[in-house]
């Protein structure tokens, strides 16, 4: 079976009289290989959320075709055929803690697996595994999710998605509102899932530092179209273009452009602090030798 996510000429038009009508897709074609870590970036309203919601068919295309690991979604696909697909595509929405509703942590996490037909015992086992994976202490198991801290609630929500054992995980700004420690923990979890559990990760984000630190591929969207798809180094090599897209550079690249403005010329645009330090060190040492 074809292990990719592919969009073929996908268009999505919202009802013309809603204020969101610009947030649509316009003949999008792309391929995301399995086991990749792909970041989707673009300014607000560029169509990122619309794009990812097609991957688990929360939205259906107005025209075109989407293929997710061999399962096809076309405009006429009926809801009946979607459940099987959604089981394989986990979706973590922005502020996912807002979706919690059960009386205990474990029950909330078991909700997904049970909906997809797992027995009580299997669902519980999967939920316990998911708790461990996101680093929730076992003692929280029977507590009400509403008695937890904000950071813990978010883990419960993410565990609720992971318990369904998805092959593809979509994360829509998973670190919004978290402090630096919480941010790092969630991003490290995404990396762990990608590196050691073989999940395909699709990350929607505004944080360019996360893009260069974690993603292998980047999709840039603008006005419902894909304007670039490549490695982080391809995307950020042209600062002017990045700014034109109303996007930011990663901190290191941004700092590098300021160095250039100050007359210090680097060989290439560094994307991480380590690369930047290398370049500066080389420059200083080279100067020192002459």
């Amino acid at each position, binding site marked *: 079976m074809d292990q990719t996510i592919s969009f073929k000429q996908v268009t999505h038009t919202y009802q013309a009289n809603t204020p969101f009508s610009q947030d649509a897709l316009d003949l999008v074609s792309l391929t995301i290989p399995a086991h990749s870590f792909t970041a989707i970036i673009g300014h607000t309203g560029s169509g990122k959320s619309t794009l990812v919601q097609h991957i688990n068919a929360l939205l259906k295309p107005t025209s075109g075709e989407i293929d997710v690991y061999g399962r096809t979604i076309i405009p006429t696909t009926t809801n009946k055929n979607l459940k099987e697909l959604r089981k394989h595509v986990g979706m973590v929405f922005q502020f996912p803690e807002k979706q919690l*509703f*059960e*009386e205990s942590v474990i029950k909330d996490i078991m909700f997904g697996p049970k909906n997809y037909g797992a027995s009580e015992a299997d669902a519980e086992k999967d939920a316990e595994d998911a708790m461990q994976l996101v680093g929730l202490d076992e003692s929280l198991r029977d507590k*009400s999710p*509403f*008695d937890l801290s904000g950071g813990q609630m978010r883990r419960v929500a993410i565990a609720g998605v992971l318990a369904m054992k998805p092959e593809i995980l979509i994360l829509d700004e998973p670190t919004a509102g978290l402090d630096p420690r919480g941010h790092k923990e969630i991003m490290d979890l995404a990396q762990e899932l990608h590196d050691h559990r073989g999940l395909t990760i699709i990350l929607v984000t505004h944080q360019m530092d996360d893009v260069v630190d974690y993603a292998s591929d980047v999709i840039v969207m603008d006005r419902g179209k894909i304007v670039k798809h490549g490695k982080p180094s391809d995307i950020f090599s042209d600062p002017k273009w990045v700014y034109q897209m109303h996007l930011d550079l990663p901190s290191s690249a941004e700092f590098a452009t300021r160095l250039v403005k100050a007359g210090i010329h680097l060989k290439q645009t560094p994307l991480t602090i380590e690369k930047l330090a290398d370049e500066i060190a080389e420059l200083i040492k080279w100067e020192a030798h002459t």
Partner: protein
Amino acid sequence: MPVKKKTLRLNMLAMFIAIILLQTSIPLIGYIPIGPLEITIIPMTVVVATVLLGTVDGAIIGGVWGFTTFVRAFVWPTSPLAAIVFVNPLISVIPRIMIGVVAGVAYTYLRKHLKSQAASISISAVLGSLTNTILVLGLIYLFYKAKAPQLYQINIKELLPYLLGVVGTNGVPEAIFSGIVTPLIAIPVKKIFDRTNH
């Protein structure tokens, strides 16, 4: 009442009004269609409001739903029943207010006499829902017996069994439904409410 409590009450009521408005305009969270009939889940919202905010505020939220039903019967009726019956403000508003009153009185009493919070909420919800059904039925009967002027004159003598039948067959599953689901919703929501309301 301290300012803080007063402001919070104002905003709680505002949020419940917003939810009622949403539920009356979005079927998915307001009505569950079963065959030709539909069960409304809005009485449950009124009961949740009553459990959180007390009898008076529950009655206010019920009244808001009633008023919305009334206005809607003119502007955008959901069924012929609504167009014929709910254009009478007494039929559209009073039963809805009484949901809050009955559920509130019942809940206050049951909380003192029953150990289980879930059971108290469940029984109050059933009573609240039945109050709505019985009052709507009773008032329809009363008004049409008394030959009050109507907006759409229909020979009600023939139609009355039909009207009573529709309201009745809606009312019973509605009450059962309220009894099962309301505690599942009210208990976690009350937890959040009590935490913010210290």
